[in-house]
C-alpha cells in the first residue's frame, strides 16, 4: 500500500462489518432449507473480502477509497442476488464480480496516462466502429445480444466505456482549431458529433431505445465540456435556447416514434394488469408489500417475474430487504461518483472522463429505477453492479477504473540528470 499516512485497516474492517451484518440478516430472516446455503455464501463473501484487502496492499496508488467502495458494493450485490427466492449462492455473479474488479484495474491502468491515449486515439475510434459493426452484423434479428453458447455478450454495453473515452479531451486538444468552410472548429469535436449520430442511428435501428438516453447524456456532457467551453459563463439565453431545443426535439421524436414506443408511453398499467405494464404492476406491489424493512431475504414473490434480477431489480431488493436497504444500495453506488467530487482530478482530461462516467451511471440508474416504478416509460436497462448481467458488470468495472485514474493519475517524471535516484512517482 502506498505510504500516504492513512491507515486503511479501520475502513477495511468497516466494509467487512457491513457484509457480516447483511449476512446476519440472511441467517436470521432468510428463507433457506439447510444452513449450508448461507454458509457457502458467507464463506465466499468473507474470503473474497479478505483476499481483496490483502491484494490491495500490493497496489501502489494514492487513493484506495474507490477500491474499498467497489468491493463493498459488489459483495452487497452478490448477497442480494444470491437470496432471490431462496438463499443459495450465485456463482456466475460471483465470477463476474471478480472480473469486474479486474476490469477496473485494467481501466485504471489504461487511462492513467493521457499522453498514451492521445497518441492512440484512433484505436478507440476504430474500436467504436468495430463494436457498431458487430452489432449490425452479428446480433440476431435486430436484437442486441450475441449468443456464444455458454455466455451472451451485449456489445452495446462495451460501447459505453469506449464512447466515454472518445468524449474525453484535454484543454490542449480543444485549442487545436482548424478552419473548415471559414469556421474554426476542432476536428475532434466533429468526430464526436459523427460518432454520436452513428450511435443514435444504431440504437434506432436495433429498437433498443433504452440505452439511448444514456448515450445522449454522455454526449450532452461532452458537448458541455467541449463546445460550451469557450463560453464558460453560459448566458441564460443560450441555456434557455438549448433546453427548449432539446425539449422540442424530444416532443417531435415522441410524436413520430414507432408504434411499440407509443404503446409503452401511453399504457396505464393498472387498467390492464396482465398486459403491457404487468412487470411494473408487480414491481410496485412488491415494493408496497415489502414496506420499509422488507419481508426477509428469500421470502419474496417477485423473483418469478421475468427480468426480476435486471430490469426491476430495485423492487426485488425492496420486497425482500426493504425500501431502506434498496435506497442505501443506490446511495452507495452514487457515493462512488461523490468521491470523484470530493477528490477532484487534476487534469481536464480526467475531469471529462469523470463526467462521462457519472453521466452513464446516473442516467442508467435513473432509467431503471424510475422506469420500473412507472414514473417514466419502462426501458430495459440495468443498474450498474447491482443488476445481474456480465457485459454490464465488465463495462461498468472499466468505467470505475476511469474514475480511479482521475484520483490516482500518473504523471511520470523522467530521470533527471541532476538527480541520482530514479524518480518514478505515482501522483
Amino acid at each position, binding site marked *: 500500500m502506498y505510504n500516504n499516512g492513512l491507515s486503511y485497516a479501520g475502513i477495511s474492517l468497516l466494509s467487512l462489518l457491513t457484509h457480516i451484518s447483511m449476512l446476519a440478516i440472511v441467517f436470521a430472516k432468510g428463507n433457506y432449507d439447510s444452513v449450508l446455503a448461507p454458509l457457502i455464501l458467507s464463506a465466499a463473501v468473507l474470503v473474497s473480502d479478505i483476499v481483496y484487502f490483502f491484494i490491495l496492499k500490493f497496489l501502489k496508488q494514492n487513493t484506495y477509497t474507490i477500491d474499498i467502495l467497489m468491493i463493498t458494493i459488489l459483495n452487497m450485490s452478490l448477497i442480494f442476488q444470491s437470496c432471490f427466492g431462496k438463499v443459495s449462492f450465485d456463482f456466475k455473479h460471483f465470477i463476474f464480480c471478480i472480473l469486474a474488479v479486474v476490469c477496473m484495474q485494467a481501466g485504471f491502468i489504461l487511462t492513467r496516462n493521457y499522453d498514451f491515449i492521445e497518441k492512440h486515439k484512433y484505436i478507440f475510434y476504430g474500436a467504436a466502429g468495430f463494436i457498431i459493426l458487430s452489432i449490425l452484423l452479428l446480433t440476431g434479428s435486430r436484437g442486441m445480444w450475441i449468443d456464444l453458447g455458454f455466455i451472451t455478450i451485449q456489445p452495446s454495453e462495451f460501447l459505453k466505456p469506449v464512447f466515454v473515452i472518445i468524449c474525453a479531451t484535454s*484543454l490542449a486538444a480543444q485549442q487545436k482549431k482548424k478552419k473548415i468552410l471559414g469556421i474554426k472548429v476542432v476536428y475532434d469535436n466533429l468526430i464526436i458529433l459523427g460518432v454520436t449520430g452513428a450511435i443514435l442511428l444504431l440504437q434506432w435501428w436495433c429498437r433498443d431505445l433504452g440505452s439511448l438516453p444514456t448515450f445522449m*447524456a454522455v454526449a450532452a*456532457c461532452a458537448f*458541455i*465540456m467541449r463546445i460550451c*467551453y469557450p463560453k*464558460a459563463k453560459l448566458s441564460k439565453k443560450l441555456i434557455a435556447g438549448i433546453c427548449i431545443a432539446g425539449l422540442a426535439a424530444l416532443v417531435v421524436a415522441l410524436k413520430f416514434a414507432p408504434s411499440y414506443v407509443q404503446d409503452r408511453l401511453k399504457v396505464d398499467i*393498472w387498467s390492464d*394488469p396482465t398486459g403491457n405494464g404487468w412487470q411494473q*404492476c408487480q414491481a*410496485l*406491489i412488491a*415494493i*408496497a*408489500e*415489502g*414496506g*420499509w*424493512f*422488507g*419481508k426477509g431475504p428469500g421470502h419474496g414473490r417477485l423473483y418469478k417475474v421475468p427480468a426480476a434480477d435486471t430490469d426491476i431489480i430495485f423492487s426485488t431488493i425492496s420486497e425482500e430487504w*426493504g*425500501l431502506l436497504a434498496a*435506497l442505501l444500495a*443506490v446511495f452507495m453506488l*452514487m457515493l462512488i*461518483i*461523490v468521491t*470523484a*467530487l470530493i477528490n*477532484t*482530478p*487534476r487534469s*481536464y482530461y480526467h*475531469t*471529462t472522463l*469523470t*463526467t462521462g462516467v*457519472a*453521466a452513464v451511471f*446516473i442516467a442508467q*440508474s*435513473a432509467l431503471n*429505477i*424510475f422506469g420500473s*416504478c412507472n*414514473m417514466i416509460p419502462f426501458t430495459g436497462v440495468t443498474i450498474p453492479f447491482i443488476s445481474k448481467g456480465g457485459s454490464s458488470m465488465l463495462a461498468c468495472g472499466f468505467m470505475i477504473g476511469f474514475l480511479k485514474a482521475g484520483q490516482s493519475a500518473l504523471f511520470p517524471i523522467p530521470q533527471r540528470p541532476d538527480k541520482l535516484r530514479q524518480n518514478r512517482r505515482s501522483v
Partner: protein
Amino acid sequence: MKSLKRGSRLITLMLLLFLVGMGILIAKIQSEAAFYISNSGSRNLGFVYDCNGDILFDDNAEDGDYPAGYFKDVGNLIGDASGQMTNTLVANNMEYLSNYSFTSGITAKGGKAAIYSTLNHSANEAVYSSFGSKNGCAIAYNYKTGEILVCVSRPSVDPITGYADLEDGSLLCKPFYKTVPGSTQKISTLTAGIETMGIDKLMSKSFTCDGTYVNKTGKEIHCHNQYGHGTQNIAEAFANSCNPFFAQLVEDNDWSLDDIINVYTQMGYAVNGAESRYYSIDGITCSRASTDLENKNEFNTQWSCIGQGTSMVSPCQLMMWQSAIANKTGKATMPYLIDHVTNVNGRTVKSAETAYSEKLFSANTAAEVKKIMLENGENYTGKIPGYTLGIKSGTAQVKNGDEENSLLTGFVDDDDFPIAFAILIENKSEYDVTTEAVANEILSSLS
C-alpha cells in the same frame, strides 16, 4: 481551476436531479402504497362491527364460526369481499379494512383495521324476521344525527353459505333503489302545494270525491273507496289518501305545472328526463327520485302526482324527506352507515359527522306538512301504540297491476327518540304481515 470546476458542477447537477427524482419516487410510493396493495392478490381485511360490537363482516369466516343465518339480515347491505356485490359497504370501503401500512409492510395477522357501523344488529335481525315469509325492505335512521339504525332487504344472502340458488333480488339492498311510491307520493304533492300556494290558500280548497273523477282530458281517476269520501280539505284528503281530490288539486288553476316541477326538482326529483342523480351513503349509491310531468290536466301526469304514473322513489329518500319534515327545517339529515374507522394500529382515522342536504323546501312548509302528517298519525295509535307519529301509508301497483306493494313512511315526533323510517312489503295480502307490524317491530326493538 475554473475548467476543472465545470466538471464538478456538472456532476453535482446530475446528482441533484437524481436525488430529486428519488425523493419524488419515495413520496409517490408512500402515498400510493395502499392502492398498490388493493390491486395485489394477497389480502388481510379487518372486521365490520355494529354499534354494539357485533361482527357484521368477517373475511375469514367459515361455516360453523357463527350461528346459522347470522349474517343474512345484513348480507346485501354490508356485503363481503368476494366481488359478487358491488353496492355494499365492504365493496366500497375496502381500503379502510385493509390491514396494511407502508411502514410495516403487509401484516400477516393482528391488524386492527375495522369499520364501526351505526347499525343495530339485534334490532336489524328482529326486523328481518318480523317480515315473516314476505319480501320487501325497511330502513330506519336517527333523523337528528343521521345514523342508520336498521336497514333490511328481503330476500337477502348469507355470504358464508354462498351465492348459489338465490332468489331474484337477493343481491340488491332495496332501500337504495327506486320503486313505485304509491300514495306516499302524496307527501311530495302536498309539499309542492304548500310551498307554492301557502297553507292558508291550500287549506281553503275543497273538492268532492264520489268514487270516480273524470279529469279535464276525459279520463277517469278511481278512488280506492268506490263510494267516495265526499267533500274534503287537504288534510282530510291526505288522511283518506283520496285520489280524485289530489287529481282535482293538480288541475287547479292556482298553480302551474312549472310550480309543481320546481318544487319536485328542489326536493330531489329528476323531472322529465333530467339527469338522474345519486346520493352516496359511505360509498353505497342510493338512487334519487324521478318522474315525468307533462300536462297537469292529463292522466299520466296526475297519476304521477298521486302515486303511480312514472314516479319512482327509493325508500331511503322517502325516509330522508321525513327528516326534513320532522326537523321542520326543510333540510334532510344525510344518512350515514359508518360511525368511525380504525386503522391497522387501532387509531381512529375517520369519524362520522352530521350533515344536511341543501334546502328541499322551506321551513314553513316543513312545519305545515309535519302538522298534517301528525294529524294522520293519530289514526294509527291503535296499530302502532305508544308513539306520537307522523305517518303516510301507500299502496303501489307493480308488474302491470299483477301485484301490489304496501308502503309506510313516517317519523316519531320525540326529541329523545328521533326515528324516521320507510317500510315496503311486496305482494301484500290481507292475511299476511302488515307494514304497521314491521313498524312496531322497528320501534320496539330500537327503544
